[in-house]
């Protein structure tokens, strides 16, 4: 059943009608990003002018009610094309600055962007975060050209990251998504994507816009939905992603609830797809890859192990209810081993994540409690990874993540067999 068309404001409707049709569309969702959005808009403008000078392009800023002059900053940002050595100037870049309707969150912003792309019949689109400091005009080419010229439907980002950046992605979301859906998308919740107009229409037809996906699950939803729908997928190397910290005081357990809640909910929806797949395939990577030295990252391993051990002591009954008996028993030796011997093995971690997914599916306890109780386990796994990889470069640490992914793939039958079984009373 098709969704009803997304509501646009009268001014936006008028702007869309004036423009008529467009070849390319770049969306920038925002909320109180006055400090950075000007740079993003200039980078996008420069990228469209430099790499797609003859295409009719539209930049859409979909805003969630900013109170800090974000809209003015976006409207007034003009790229200095001369400084960027761009002489072959394209036709005027159309800008649409619009508020979005719907429940507050990035998902509602994307819905507005997809709707405008649909009405303009855009062939290739991209969305980039509005708080990026490291975006360059090259990002626009890397996210759009694979769609426009190579026939891909979805371009996931590939960032240059420190080995300890994005640990939820490295230890859970990437290995799990790869094992489930068979595609090695290294950063499935990157935040900056390219996609075809066809895929944007497909997204609009889904009934997720009034759910939690619209609040904080849109990134993983877009990636998972693209894979499950059979879209052609690739990745583009964008270099480092430097952005304003989204919420420095963000609670880790809330992050896990949001991200893992979305991942597990999508598992329920796409069970028919992932239960039949085995192994995984590499995903083509565009862009020129390079390495640079990165700032050292301080990690408090003792605090993480302390959190894990407190969980083992105080959350024992809850962990017993959400994990298989073997899995829980295997965690006990970690309660009192020396710090340097603290090692949460790959197979055990894979089974543990699958147990939590099964517990989510079978409602063994309130779902929010289940996901929040995962926090000390995740910290234990992160501490184990840090201990294993101290002294390794980011590239060397990547081989450990590859080994973890293979463990997830090897343990997948464990998940598939138990998905339909109800746990014993």
């Amino acid at each position, binding site marked *: 059943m098709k969704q009803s068309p997304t509501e646009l404001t009268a001014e936006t409707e008028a702007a869309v009608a004036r423009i008529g049709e467009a070849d390319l569309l770049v969306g920038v969702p925002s909320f109180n990003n006055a400090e950075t959005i000007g740079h993003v808009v200039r980078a996008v403008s420069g990228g469209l002018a430099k790499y797609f000078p003859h295409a009719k392009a539209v930049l859409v800023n979909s805003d969630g009610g900013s109170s800090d002059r974000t809209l003015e900053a976006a409207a007034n940002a003009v790229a200095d094309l001369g400084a960027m050595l761009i002489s072959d100037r394209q036709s005027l870049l159309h800008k649409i600055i619009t508020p979005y309707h719907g429940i507050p969150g990035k998902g509602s912003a994307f819905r507005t962007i997809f709707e405008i792309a649909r009405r303009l019949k855009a062939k290739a689109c991209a969305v980039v975060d509005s708080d990026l400091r490291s975006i360059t005009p090259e990002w626009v080419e890397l996210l759009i050209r694979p769609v426009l010229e190579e026939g891909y439907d979805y371009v996931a980002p590939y960032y240059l990251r420190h080995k300890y*950046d994005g640990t939820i992605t490295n230890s859970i979301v990437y290995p799990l998504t790869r094992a489930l859906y068979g595609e090695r998308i290294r950063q499935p919740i990157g935040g900056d994507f390219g996609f075809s107009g066809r895929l944007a229409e497909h997204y609009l037809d889904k009934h997720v816009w009034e759910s939690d996906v619209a609040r904080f699950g849109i990134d993983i939803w877009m990636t998972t939905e693209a894979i499950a729908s059979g879209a052609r997928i690739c990745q583009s190397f964008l270099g480092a992603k430097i952005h304003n910290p989204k919420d420095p005081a963000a609670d880790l*357990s809330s992050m896990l609830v949001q991200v893992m809640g979305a991942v597990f909910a999508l598992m329920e929806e796409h069970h028919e797809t992932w239960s039949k797949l085995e192994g995984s395939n590499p995903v083509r990577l565009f862009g020129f890859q390079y390495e640079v030295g990165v700032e050292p990252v*301080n*990690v408090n391993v003792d*605090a993480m192990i302390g*959190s894990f051990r407190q969980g083992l002591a105080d959350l024992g009954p*809850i962990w017993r209810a959400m994990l298989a008996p073997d899995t829980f028993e295997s965690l006990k030796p970690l309660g009192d081993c020396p710090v340097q011997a603290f090692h949460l093995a790959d197979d055990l971690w894979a089974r543990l994540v699958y147990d939590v997914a099964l517990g989510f599916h079978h409602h063994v306890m*309130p779902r929010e*409690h289940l996901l929040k109780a995962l926090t000390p386990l995740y910290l234990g796994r992160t501490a184990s990874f840090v201990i294993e990889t101290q002294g390794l470069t980011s590239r060397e640490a990547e081989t450990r993540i590859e080994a973890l992914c293979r463990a997830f793939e090897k343990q997948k039958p464990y998940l598939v067999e138990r998905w339909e079984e109800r746990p014993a009373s």
Partner: protein
Amino acid sequence: MSEFWQTALVLPLTTLADNVLAILPNVLAMIIIVTVGLITAWAAGQVTERLLRVIRVDHLCNRVGISAALLRGGVKADPSHLVGRLAYWVVAVFAVLAALGALNLQPINQFVQSLLAYIPHLLAAALILLTGYLLSNFVSQAALIAAVNAGLPPARAVATFSRWGVRLIAIAMGLEQLGIAQNIVVVGFGIAFGGVVMASAIAFGLGARDLAKEFLEQQFGRKGVHPKDDLTHL
């Protein structure tokens, strides 16, 4: 002489027989009602138990902790069986009350009426206690997880305090419904709870100034899981 026997013996016996004959239909009705009622009660108990097993109520009770609570109280029977027994006894009690009503005796009728008037309060109190029990488990589990994730050492104490706080409120509300020592329970509960809250506020505000400062800084000024971490999770 025959008149004497007639008056002294036959008349009382005749009166007694008349009274017995007058009440006999009522007694017969009572016996029939009790018999049918007990058979109906047995059937209701069986049907209830089987229905609850089919819809997996035992599994649900296990998940929300009711089965564990029953085991701790020394009750080994399944919740389905217990509810089946409860259905049996409810129907049986109603059958007995109806049977007593069939006797049509004034004192018994008054007793039955006042018992029936009390039943809604009994049901409301049972509902309050059950809801309070389930809510206390939910709240204490949430508090325990939050306390562990925040790294608070007395996490279990926080959870226990939360659990018993909710249960005491539910017990006070239940006793109020039943009309048992209403004023004492409400006032006593208010004094105890208010005293605990005031003592905690004083201890936290004065005795734990530094801890409060650190806690508030962590809540409103912290930069990550632990201040010394630069690690980004997403």
